[in-house]
């Protein structure tokens, strides 16, 4: 792959001989061989990159107007909305952009689950993806604190308090995170600094994700590796074009929210300035955290105690472990899935479990949005149990018991067969 591309333009050639960026771009985004049978689910990685760039751009513009101080933050955001030229647009793009970013990345992740993209040799690629999700969560969480509304404040309070579940050093860690005895000005300031920093860390990890991707290239709906140049087409113009179609559709949806329902994903309570002495009656996180929030609340009080005969860890700690565990299992997935077959197309049972898992996540999301009482508690527990069983029980067992359908010998084979 180290062969240099010959450029006609003398300036480009001069630069490329000294710093081969153009050769790199040509290899990775022009000539790069892509499986020719990719469907539209393969658009979402590109869409996520666009979303990240949009967030960074609008974020920098907002930062020029925003004031990170408990007395001024809420007012400065209102000023952005009312007085700053196109401030409302920047903020609505940034606000809805966070939701769009998560939708796109979640779809991207479920694409990976369906088509088995996490399997060897793409385990690290997958794990970098999970790191990206974690960084996004941290970034979005801290960003949501910045407008200093009621949900900002109480969301921050509840989430930072999670760390107090850690034995012995928990309380010390929480005080350290806050820089005080409650979420207050020092907390807001450091969250702002980190909210500015983390997207750039994210950008770097996305870079690694793409480098890892380009070692083995994309998988494809059949899950059969590329075998010959007959199975591929070049990235440009085929996938630049296909990605553009998806991008336009994505921007339509994005714009529809920004212009016609800008507060659809938001909580009205966040337009009330933070009040440390009054908890809103019903604290809900942003929608993209809801399934995890449901898992956090699902662990029964004395589950661990009743189970082991004595209390080793409190329900609070158990909930926190379950919540982080729900992401940790994603890291282990490449080794939990024992099936040799990648794509769910050829896995008659896994296919069903995939859809059930998707429903389970949606159900958890719904439960996360409801108060933790009555029937919701029980549904939440069942859905949490299913979530973990999916990874820890179903994935390993399916590989053993399922008989996959016969795989095509190559990507081109089914197409050629249809032709004849």
């Amino acid at each position: 792959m180290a062969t240099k591309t010959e450029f006609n333009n003398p300036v480009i050639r001069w630069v490329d001989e000294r710093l081969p960026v153009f050769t790199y771009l040509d290899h990775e985004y022009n000539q790069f061989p892509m499986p020719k049978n990719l469907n539209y689910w393969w658009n979402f990685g590109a869409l996520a990159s666009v979303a990240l760039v949009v967030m960074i751009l609008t974020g920098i513009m907002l930062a020029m107007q925003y004031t990170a101080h408990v007395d001024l933050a809420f007012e400065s955001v209102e000023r952005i909305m009312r007085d700053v030229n196109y401030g409302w647009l920047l903020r609505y793009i940034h606000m809805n952009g966070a939701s769009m970013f998560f939708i796109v990345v979640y779809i991207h992740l479920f694409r990976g689950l369906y088509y088995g993209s996490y399997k060897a040799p793409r385990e690290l690629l997958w794990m970098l993806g999970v790191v990206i999700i974690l960084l996004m969560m941290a970034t979005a969480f801290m960003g949501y604190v910045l407008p200093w509304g009621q949900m900002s404040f109480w969301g921050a309070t509840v989430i930072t308090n999670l760390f107090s579940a850690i034995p012995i050093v928990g309380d010390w860690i929480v005080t350290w995170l806050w820089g005080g005895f409650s979420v207050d000005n020092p907390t807001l300031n450091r969250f702002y600094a980190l909210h500015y920093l983390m997207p750039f860390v994210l950008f770097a990890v996305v870079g690694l994700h793409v480098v890892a991707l380009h070692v083995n290239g994309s998988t494809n709906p059949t899950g059969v590796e590329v075998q010959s140049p007959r199975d591929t087409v070049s990235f440009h113009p085929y996938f630049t074009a296909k990605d553009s179609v998806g991008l336009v559709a994505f921007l339509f949806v994005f714009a529809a929210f920004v212009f016609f329902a800008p507060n659809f994903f938001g909580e009205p309570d966040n337009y009330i300035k933070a009040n440390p002495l009054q908890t809103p009656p019903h604290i809900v996180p942003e929608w993209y955290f809801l399934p995890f929030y449901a898992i956090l609340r699902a662990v029964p009080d004395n589950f661990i105690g009743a189970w082991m005969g004595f209390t080793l860890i409190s329900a609070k700690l158990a909930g926190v472990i379950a919540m982080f565990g729900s992401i940790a299992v994603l890291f282990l997935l490449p080794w939990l899935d024992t099936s040799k077959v990648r794509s769910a197309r050829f896995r008659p049972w896994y296919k069903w479990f995939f859809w059930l898992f998707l429903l389970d996540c949606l159900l958890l999301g719904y439960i996360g949005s409801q108060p933790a009482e009555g029937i919701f508690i029980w549904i939440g527990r069942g859905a949490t149990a299913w979530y973990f069983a999916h990874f820890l029980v179903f994935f390993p067992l399916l590989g053993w018991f399922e008989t996959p359908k016969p795989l095509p010998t190559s990507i081109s084979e089914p197409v050629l067969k249809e032709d004849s």
Partner: protein
Amino acid sequence: MADEVQTPESDDEGARRREFLYLATLGVGAVGAAAFAWPIIDSMNPAADVLALSSVEVDLGPIQVGQSITVKWRGRPVFIRRRTPDEIKAARVAELAELIDPQPDEERVQQPEWLILVGVCTHLGCIPLGQKSGEPRGDYGGWFCPCHGSHYDTSGRIRFGPAPKNLEVPGYTFLDDSTVRIG
């Protein structure tokens, strides 16, 4: 030149010296990095001015029996409730063995009538309801945290729900019969 050829022994010696220098450099470097890490970590801890704002004086005079007030201390609410005899009795008859975080009421108050607590749920930090009349006080007549449903009794002890500990009792001193200093 032949006498300059290194014997295996002298080679070994050199390797051991290099290894030692390598480890020593690494060790000093690690100590230096750790020494530098601490100021960075500690800079995020509460600053002197934050620590300085650490006490408030409250006039208890206007509070009637059965009433509660909330004052702000270190950015957090402190609940002061002037308990009724019934509430005190309820707090004292509770079986310690039944409690999630067993502690007798006597240890949680200086004067039985005055219950003073940090009004922050020990689960995830919401402010429990029950200070104002009309707010739910939970199944044990104390406070109810709406966030995830923790019930506290008339001594501020956790009785039901996900919170692991009783509401914290802050340090306080009665300056005279009707003034208390918190912190």
